[in-house]
């Protein structure tokens, strides 16, 4: 069955793509995907990150039409959080993006484990599948990201960070760990008061931090302001290298590996033991390191 799915993807059968993505997102087919080698036609992979409610889904929805007008096909991978308790997820990004019936657009919702790095597991494999299918652009929406959620850097050519006016004091900009990994910063909801001031503050914070100059663009999905400028920037900015040559890729990979090992029944009963209160969290951790064969921290 997977064989015919692979053929399907190469024939540009959307259903085959959809089915293979489900398998990849669950951790199946990963070895096959990793052995594919570089894609015939690499896509431009753009990550859109920023805290929940900042307007990531709305903005992506507004990018679809102009992107299509520029002749680009696009796959959108929208990550929403999965409950660590039930494994359930309410994937609502698609609702904000509007309905696209065009064959050049593929929208897929993916659940991301909470406590992980704001992106769905095996995202690299899912991206690779979309490249195999031949999309020009792949846009990844992260779970409402904040400090430290920087893993997406490893799989994206460009990281766009969304901020909005009036979200707090000036310190906020410096605190956000994601500022460091952003290639482009969007002050979103620029129809609201305070957008210009927010842009000034962000520019000041960036200058203070030194390093390369990151463009800051004012955009409103509501009025359409700045959308064309944003697209121009997304087309023209040089791609960063992806394919896991940095520390974030390593950490993400390590996390996924640990997660995989934790599926072990012994690890599950260890958790039950901790939950029942018979051992404390430190003891549980100590035994966990033993179990997973990882060195003690």
């Amino acid at each position: 069955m997977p064989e015919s799915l692979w053929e399907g993807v190469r024939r540009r059968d959307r259903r085959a793509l959809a089915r293979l993505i489900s398998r990849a997102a669950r951790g199946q087919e990963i070895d096959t995907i990793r052995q594919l080698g570089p894609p015939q036609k690499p896509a431009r992979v753009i990550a859109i990150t920023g805290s929940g409610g900042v307007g990531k889904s709305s903005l992506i929805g507004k990018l679809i039409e102009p992107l299509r007008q520029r002749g680009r096909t696009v796959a959108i991978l929208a990550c929403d959080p999965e409950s660590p308790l039930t494994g359930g997820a309410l994937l609502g990004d698609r609702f904000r993006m509007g309905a696209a019936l065009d064959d050049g657009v593929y929208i897929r919702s993916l659940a991301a484990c909470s406590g992980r790095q704001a992106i769905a597991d095996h995202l690299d494999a899912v991206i690779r599948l979309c490249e195999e299918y031949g999309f020009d652009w792949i846009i990844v929406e992260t779970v409402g990201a904040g400090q430290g959620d920087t893993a997406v850097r490893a799989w994206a050519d460009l990281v766009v960070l969304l901020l909005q006016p009036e979200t707090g004091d000036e310190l906020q900009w410096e605190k956000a760990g994601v500022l460091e990994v952003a290639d482009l910063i969007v002050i979103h909801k620029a129809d609201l008061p305070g957008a210009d001031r927010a842009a000034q503050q962000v520019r000041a914070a960036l200058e203070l931090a030194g390093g390369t100059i990151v463009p800051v663009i004012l955009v409103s999905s509501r009025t359409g302001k700045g959308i064309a400028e944003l697209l121009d920037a997304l087309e023209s900015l040089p791609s960063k290298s992806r394919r896991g040559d940095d520390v974030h890729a390593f950490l993400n990979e390590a996390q996924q590996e640990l997660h995989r090992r934790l599926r072990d029944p012994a690890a599950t009963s260890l958790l039950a033991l901790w939950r029942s209160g018979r051992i404390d969290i430190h003891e549980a951790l100590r035994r966990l390191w033993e179990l997973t064969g990882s060195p003690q921290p």
Partner: protein
Amino acid sequence: MWYAEGMSEEPIRIVLAKVGLDGHDRGIKVVARALRDAGCHVIYAGLWQTVESVVRTVADEDADWLGISILSGAHMTLVPQIMEAMRQAGLDHVGVIVGGIIPEADVPKLLEMGVSRVFGPGTPMQQIVEFVKSRRSAAHA
């Protein structure tokens, strides 16, 4: 996930949508939350969908189920269109459930069209959850 006891490895994926101009979205939101809490992956397509966009969503999201909520009285026009479009898209393996204000007399007709079950006002959430979980569509098993 390893720490959620009794969770299946492969969560059920269900698309929930409202078709047409029907703006009653309380019920579908309640159902969405209940299914999420029961461990499903709920793709919320929301209000004002067309038949075509719903079917496209089900295909692209590789869903096991489609749940439609209709309180506008238009179910006898919309449901046949949806069922036909699903068939044409080769999505016969996806179960379809319908909820909302559906007169008793119309229920057998909807079932005849291939709808798996109809859930009216006051349906306990547990019933919906159990139904969805017990009848995972064959093609995805």
